[in-house]
């Protein structure tokens, strides 16, 4: 075995933290049937990726291995495994909880951080650009959609909520730079 698990690696507080997500405690019900990974479209193209392994490691309290695994970010949240699990393990819901624990510990991928920043800056994860302003006009739509893009007060509301939730601090974004 290449990386044997040492009992000293296990952190019981990790499972306690995971359990905050309702239903996530069900990862203890997994009996290794592999129904989740067998149907997984990601495992289909990246055989090393295995959601069962990540969830089992989580149940064992292997905090560092799980939170630092790049595989944590491979799941497309297609829900096929969660639908098929015979034990009702909330595979995807738990994966999302694991990601949020990682983020709280400062692990986030630059591309995701950028999308979060777009929402803080413009109210849209994918904001309008020049090319699409033109496409909208060609289609006889308003050049800007009637969303936060046309409504500065609405954008202020979005920014206010982001701040109130502490999301700007979580992502390490300075709202002062918006002014």
């Amino acid at each position, binding site marked *: 075995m290449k990386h044997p698990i040492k009992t000293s690696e296990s952190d019981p507080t990790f499972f306690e933290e995971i359990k905050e997500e309702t239903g996530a405690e069900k990862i203890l019900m997994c009996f290794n049937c592999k129904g989740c990974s067998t149907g997984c*479209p*990601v495992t*289909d*193209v*990246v055989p090393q990726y295995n959601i069962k392994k990540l969830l089992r490691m989580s149940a064992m309290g292997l905090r560092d291995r799980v939170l630092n695994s*790049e595989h944590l*970010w*491979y*799941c*497309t*949240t*297609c*829900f*096929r495994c*969660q*639908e098929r699990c015979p034990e009702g393990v909330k595979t995807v819901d738990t994966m*999302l909880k694991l*990601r*949020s624990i990682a*983020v709280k510990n400062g692990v*986030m*991928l*630059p*591309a*995701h951080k*950028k*999308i*979060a920043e777009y*929402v803080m800056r413009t109210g*849209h*994860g*994918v*904001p*309008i*650009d020049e090319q*699409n302003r033109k*496409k*909208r006009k060609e*289609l*006889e*739509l308003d050049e800007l*959609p*009637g*969303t*936060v*893009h*046309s*409504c500065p007060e*609405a*954008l202020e*509301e*979005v920014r*206010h*909520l*982001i701040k*109130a*939730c502490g*999301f700007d601090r*979580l*992502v390490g974004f300075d709202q002062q730079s918006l002014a």
Partner: protein
Amino acid sequence: MTKNITDNSKRNLSLFLGCIAPNRYPGIESATRKVMERLGISLKELEGASCCPAPGVFQSFDKKTWLTLASRNLCLSESLDADILTVCNGCYATLADTNRILKEDPEAKAGVNEKLSEIGKEFSGKIEVRHIVEYLFREVSPEKVRDAVIHPLDLRVAVHYGCHLIKPAHERKLGSAENPSFFDELVEATGARSVEYEDKMACCGAGGGARSAVQDVALALTEKKLEHMQSANVDCIVDACPFCHLQFDQGQIELADRLGKEFNIPVLHYSQLLGLALGYSPEELGIHLNRIQNSEFYTKLGERAESRFPGRKLGAGAGIGKGGVPT
């Protein structure tokens, strides 16, 4: 999937645009407005709506922020006394899940309302979240959609449901997640044929933040799906989600650039397919603004599947079937 017992078709509806439809594929917005108007369904404008917010990033990063920003969008529709209509599976996931969680969990609702009170809003939980495909099936029906068709389409279609339209199945209540049929029925109502293909219910690859952060993984899923569609010899892909749409359309360009692999399969949102069958031109529906342009497809649009509508007198349709790529 069965139809609702109660008649929800009389309830007001607002149109939630999201990000990718208005800001990357405005043809989907244009097509949605046109087909809904033709079907006699009025849509209220949801002024000041934001990103849903994107489930892949926000639900992964911080559930409370995800719920709070989503609840603000729901409040906008609540204040119009309207159910909220999405054209995107990602927006549907965020808004429908948030609506359900806040209705079921008083603690979550109180937490969100504490934040919302700071901007003078309150989530009350009095509306429903709808997806255009689910709405058309339940409230309009494939039969009535079929009755509205004036240009029956002679196309072989690869239907792509996308994941979050039907899953989690327990929450969506749209029947089988492994073998659904409601979307196929709506596609066939246009005259087109929904063609079976390998692993039809597989993911496009874009979701969960995969497209932005692990693009190679996302594209590998897309490539597999496109191979399966190509083997079934389809004329186009029809999706229910601008993000799946982007992944298939832009993804084909990326696969050609990276691997030299060309599929050249046109990609349509259901609103665009229906728009064609209702007689709108590809230009009116923004189909010519897609990255993938296939001249054979435009020629094919001129062929009418009259035989699938026996005994019906059908209209001419505007600007379809002139052949060649629209300029």
